[in-house]
């Protein structure tokens, strides 16, 4: 139980610190949100009134506590711009960002892991130089630029995919998948490169271990040794990277949604910054952060499932 408790405490502590940080960045820094909403010409009386209405005249710590309690109850505040509860604004957008991130992660794992194994198996001098260049290139390419290239090639030139926009899953499964495939791929490419790199190095490290020699002496073939022994050990460090990749996928989706004009959380974040809609920005950033912290927590738990050495 000790492992679980430790991870849970760290999970809650991280949420607390991150929420505190977000709150203070938005509330301590100069500039009144009321002023920002009403514009510079608004008179003082109006600003005061709005501040009262928004609860901005309360002491800081109370505002933080109210914010957190509100979030726990599903009340994320009211968007200045839309004049609706934030939760209402987010409702339709969450599935879009969620599908984007999930498909990107699936692509990362489904393409990255087999390629990593293949490259580790064919580790020669020249092939490994060329492959390390390609992975470097994948890591160095901005995902949104890659998005443009994918649109130009697969959507405009070959017409295989829509150039922009989202088709809801409820409308047409195939078309919906098509509409999120290219943006997901654009996010995934860099992460695939990272997975390949880590997995390849990890496999090559593992093949030097003694237990591999034991497996050879048992008379096992190369594939049996790879899939029954090496791979599971080699995936452990990759799992840690997968936590980082999840964070990166969500970060990447913010930009990619704007490239493909997908009405998800990322494009909402950008428009709400343009309109200085602070309750919305604050809640959005917190929600995205929470998802990432939750993903990292899940990775920690997965570790436990894969590695029996971690004591419960």
């Amino acid at each position, binding site marked *: 139980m000790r492992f679980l408790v430790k991870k849970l405490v760290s999970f809650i*502590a*991280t949420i607390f*610190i*991150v929420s505190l*940080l*977000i709150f203070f*960045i*938005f509330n301590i*820094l100069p*500039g009144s949100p009321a002023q920002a909403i009403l514009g510079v010409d608004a008179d003082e009386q109006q600003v005061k009134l709005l501040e009262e209405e928004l609860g901005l005249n309360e002491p800081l710590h109370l505002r933080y506590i109210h914010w957190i309690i509100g979030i726990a109850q599903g009340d994320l505040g009211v968007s200045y711009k839309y004049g609706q509860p934030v939760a209402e604004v987010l409702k339709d957008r969450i599935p879009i960002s969620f599908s984007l991130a999930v498909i990107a992660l699936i692509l990362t794992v489904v393409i990255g892991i087999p390629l990593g194994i293949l490259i580790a198996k064919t580790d020669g*001098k020249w092939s*490994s*130089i060329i492959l*390390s*260049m390609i992975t*470097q*290139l994948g*890591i*160095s*390419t*901005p995902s*949104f*630029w890659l998005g*443009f*290239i994918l*649109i*130009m090639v697969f959507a*405009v030139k070959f017409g295989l995919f829509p150039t922009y926009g989202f088709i809801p899953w409820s409308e047409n499964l195939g078309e919906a998948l098509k509409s999120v495939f290219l943006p997901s791929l654009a996010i995934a490419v860099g992460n695939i490169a990272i997975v390949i790199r880590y997995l390849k190095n990890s496999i090559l490290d593992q093949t030097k271990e003694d237990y591999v020699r034991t497996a050879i002496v048992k008379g096992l073939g190369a594939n049996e040794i790879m899939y029954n022994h090496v791979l599971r050990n080699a995936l452990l460090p990759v799992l840690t990277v997968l936590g980082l990749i999840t*964070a*990166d996928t*969500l*970060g*990447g989706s*913010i*930009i990619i949604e*704007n*490239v493909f004009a997908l009405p998800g959380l990322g494009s909402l*974040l*950008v428009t709400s*910054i*343009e309109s*200085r809609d602070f309750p919305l*920005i604050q809640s959005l*950033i917190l929600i*995205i*952060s929470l998802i*990432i*912290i939750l993903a*990292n927590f899940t990775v920690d738990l997965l570790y436990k499932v894969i590695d029996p050495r971690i004591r419960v």
Partner: protein
Amino acid sequence: MQRKSITLYIGAVLVSILFLMMIVSFFWTPYGPNEMNTKIALQAPSWTYPFGTDNFGRDIFSRILEGSKTAFLVGITSIMIALTFGFIIGGIAGYFGGIVDEVLMRIIDSILAIPGILFAIMLVSVFNTGMQNTILALGIMGIPTFARVIRSGFMQVKEFDFVKSSKVKGAGSFRIIFKHILPNIFSQIIVASTLFFSGAILAESGLSYLGLGVQPPDPSWGRMLSEAQAYMTNAPWYIGITGIFIVLLVLGFNMLGDGLRDLKEKRN
């Protein structure tokens, strides 16, 4: 040649070429980077306009040269901000250890859970857009990374005998830090800076693309990409070439950083 040194070599060459380009752009660009002439808008690459022209008829090559200034400026200054504060926080945590270290690192790790670009967007939304604020946001984004590197450097070096002995001899903290610890973690800082540089360039181009980063009239590659987006079909070279420069610069610093790290590991 060793595979590792090839990485270092290519990285160094790429960075040097782009750095030279940046220097050249201070003295010379083929055309004025902001010279508009709608009559020659969206021309394909030719001998007169090697990378073509944009929607206002501005020479893309000149604008890319001009944009390299922003890229290097943002990279270097944000590293300086991140390094300074990262040094203070990481140094305090590493030097004192114990509960101070625990609390500081807990906070740093929590911040690291948020993806860099989201953190930068958050800061920019409060600070407002523009070159200075972008630099500030990216600098703050980098503090946790540097704090971690410097803290672990301090932890390692603190255990070295010569540091312990000079402490016994009564050398002051400042003296120990500047004479013994700094030179020893210098190579780690260089590697971290190189790799952070490419991260900062990526983040800046992303922010500027979203319209949350560098604003006109300051030139920026990311900003150019957002302008180019509308002309994706009739002027694909605009998006293509601009993006390739971002890739080359990021690739250069990534390879340089990896090469330097391998070099350092080999030496130890």
